[in-house]
Every structure is written in C-alpha cells, then in structure tokens.
C-alpha cells in the first residue's frame, strides 16, 4: 500500500528532514512512529499526504507515485485519507458538526447521510455535548477529538494521525487509540505519530518505527492479531 525507496526530503532552506528512508506498509497495518521532536515524523506524514514531495528517492501510495503536479491523482488519494493534523486545521467559526461534515461533503454522500455519520463520529470521540459548539471555543483536547472525528468519519483507506493523543489525558488517549485500532481491524491502514511511548507498549499487533534525525532507526513488526 505504501512503499518508500531511498526517500529523502530536503526543505528549501536546506534542512534535511528525512534521509534515505526505505519503508513498506501493508493494507490494514497499524504503525506507530515515535522519535524525538524534530526527528521528521510530521515530515513523513506530509509526504504521505502530498503536502511535500520526495527530493530524492521515491514514494508510492496505492500504486501511484507521489510526484508534483498530478493534481487529480492527488485529490483522489487525499479523499481516501483521513488526516489528523498536529495543529488540527479545524475551520474556525463552524461547529464541531459542521467541521466533521465539511470533511465529507465532496465524497459523494447525500447531506442527510453525512450528518448522521458526522454525528456518530463525534459521539464516538465523546463530544456529543459539543456538537453545536464552535470549534474555537473548545479546549485543545476537545478540538483534537473533533479533528479525529473528522478523519475517521470519512471512512478512509488510510488514517494519518499526527500526535492524535498529544493533548489528551490518559483515559481519553487510550480511548482514541482503541478507536483507531477499530479501524485497523476494518482493514484501514493507520499511521500514528506519538511521543507517548508508554501508551502504546500494550497495544498488540502493530508496527513500531522509531525515528531519529530523519532516519528510521528501529523497525519492529508484530504479526500478532
């Protein structure tokens, strides 16, 4: 599903954020990416979402090479991805429900269905009492959960979650992790970056990548169900 070959990313200012990454992620795999701040986790997710492109090496997702300029391919890919951004990227001035619905509007379902699904997703992340609240009035942890609801409500083939538990207390964090795991069980590829190594130790059947200074230093796959 995702293949990287000698993948490097150098930002225009010269920062080498990723170096020589070889990677293969299968459909339905759940991947945790850990590593210190600045090690390149977000950069890797940006490549997977087509926000950046390889400066060296190659990256292929769902059979399509990630190269600049293929706007239509990129759109189609993005429609199959549920992204949770580190800084959320919620749309201000809109309610939680509207935010989640906006992520689904161009995926072909009718508005009634979208509303139902969005509502369900918000209930799942424990925000049923905040459905109508404007997102800028929510706490960081609540905003983060809206972002997660927006990603999962799209029923994507790939979930890319950048620090999805960063602002959550332990109970909420575990709840979100188990919610994301549910998706893995539905054959969705789930890729999560996190600093919270203590939370993922107990999670079974996942791949663990550790990054340092732009390289993958540890790769551990557990093939347990």
């Amino acid at each position: 599903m995702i293949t990287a070959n000698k993948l490097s990313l150098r930002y225009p200012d010269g920062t080498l954020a990723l170096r020589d990454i070889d990677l293969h992620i299968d459909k339905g795999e759940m991947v945790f990416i850990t590593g210190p701040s600045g090690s390149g986790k977000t950069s890797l997710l940006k490549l997977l979402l087509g926000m950046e492109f390889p400066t060296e090496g190659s990256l292929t997702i769902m059979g399509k090479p990630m190269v600049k300029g293929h706007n239509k391919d990129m759109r189609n890919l993005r429609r199959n991805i549920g992204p949770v951004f580190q800084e959320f990227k919620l749309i201000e001035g809109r309610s939680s429900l509207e935010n989640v619905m906006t992520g689904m509007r161009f995926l072909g379902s009718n508005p009634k269905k979208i509303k139902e699904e969005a509502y369900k997703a918000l209930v799942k992340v424990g925000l049923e009492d905040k459905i109508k609240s404007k997102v800028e009035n929510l706490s960081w942890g609540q905003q983060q959960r809206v972002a997660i609801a927006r990603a999962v409500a799209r029923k994507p083939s790939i979930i890319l979650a950048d620090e999805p538990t960063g602002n959550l207390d332990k109970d909420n964090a575990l709840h979100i992790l188990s919610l994301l795991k549910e998706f893995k069980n539905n054959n969705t590829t789930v890729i999560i970056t996190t600093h919270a190594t203590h939370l993922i130790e107990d999670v079974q059947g996942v791949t663990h990548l550790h990054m340092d200074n732009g390289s993958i230093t540890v790769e551990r796959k557990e093939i347990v169900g």
Partner: protein
Amino acid sequence: MKTFIYNIGYFFKEAIRTIKSNVLSNFISVIGTSLILFLLGMVVTVTYIGNEFVSKLEQEAEINAYYKENLNNEDIIELTEVISNIEGVTDARLVDEEEAKSYMEGMLGEEAKILELFDENPFTAYIEVRINLSTMDNVIPEISRLDDIDYVRDNKGVLSQLNGIIRGIEIFGALIIIAVGITTLIIISHLIRQGIYNNKEQINTLRLLGASEGFIGFPYILVGLLLTLLGGLIGTILLLLLINGSYDLLGNGFLFLPLPDRGLMVRYIIMFIMGISFILGLLGSLFGLSSIGKNN
C-alpha cells in the same frame, strides 16, 4: 454534479458567511456597483428612447414633392405612380389643396384662425412621399430630377442631425458600458481575492482533505453574483424612480414626439441591467478566483 447538488445549501451558507465576515467592505462595494449600474441604466434608457425616436421618425420620414402647375389630373396621377415605383419609396399619395389646408389647421390648432384672413386657399397641392430613411440621400435627388417636379421639400437636415446625436449617444453609451464593466470587474474581483485571502487557511485545509477546486471556489462565485445582483437591483430601483418621475413630469410627449411605452421600456431595462450584473458578477468572481491557485 451530484456533489454540487448535494451542497447547494452549503455553498450558499458559505457565501453568506464570507459576505458577513467583511460586511463593511462588501456594503461599500454594493453601493459602488449600484451607482455604477444606475449610471449604466441611465445611458441605456437615453439610448433606448433615442432609438425609439429615430425609428418613429424613420417610419414617418416623409417629403413633400411639389409638381409644376401646368399638369393635369392624369399627369399628376401618373407622376404619383412613377414616384411610388422609385426604390426606397414606400408610399406616395396626392395631397390636394383642401387637405393641405386642414393639415396646417391641425398643426396650428388655436392659431388656425389666421388662415381665415385668406380669401383663397393659400396652399398648393403636393405629393406626399414616404421613404425609407436610409435611402433618403438617393431618393430625394431622383425625385427632384423628374421633369414634372418643381421642387422637393424635406426634413433631411433635422433627421440627419438627430441621427448624428443618436450615434453619438450610442458611442458614449458603449464607452460607458466598457467603463462600467471594467470598474465592476475590478471591484468584484478584488473583493473575491480578499475573501479568498481571508479564508486561505480554510481553503488549504479543504485541499488537503481532497476537495476539488470547483467545490472550494463555488461559494466565491456565489459571493460575486450575489453582490452584483444586489447592486443591479438597487441600481434598477433608483433608475425606475427616476424614469417614473420623468414620465410624470414630461407627460406623454417630449419635443412633439411621444415617449416610448413605459412598461416595455422598463422591462427591457430591468432585463438589461440584471443581465449585465449577472455577467459581470460571474466574470469578476472568476477573475478573483484565478488567484486561488497561487497560494498553495
């Protein structure tokens, strides 16, 4: 297409939200567009009335051909026949002395009493020739050249002057339309660009979620359309007030000529201004939108 229909409500909500997020500048733009379109409407109205005049005059363009006195009745009938067969002549008929007099009486109205001072009818018979205005320059000399014709009296001077004025108004009108078009396009596209700039984060997020450019851009097209249509509406209302006022003031006629049918003209002008507003709104938003791609 399906996505489009599903989201019409959303598009309108987004458009209204964008307008509300910058009420003052949108309000000013609407006022500006209204005044501009009002100006345009005035020019269109004047041109409309002018054209109406000319076409009335064209229909009624008539010249009087006076024949030589020695002709007998048969000669006159034949002469009338000859004239009516000239190309560009739509009708030719004899007006005898009596008719010429009563015509003059009609023109003079109250003052017709002076005619009673004459013992004999001072008017001579003539042939009234209706012609197509555009052929006037050829027809008049041709009639004058006929042996039996003494002289021809025409209102060519007045007509060509009027025609000139109308052409002038039309050129002026075309310039106004161009100026109005450019100004409106600038106002609207600037507004749209501003809206896009204010919402650039939202636009970027939508892109990252896989929304198409059409989905992202359509609310802004609606913004442009709503604002120009509103401007057009206000401009039209101002114009209608002006037209109604003028009609009440002028009564039914102006310079001896009847004013055009008010209902017809008003309908024409409303359609014209609203049509122009629609087109300008659409183009303006599209120009504004063309900046959307450049910030990713």
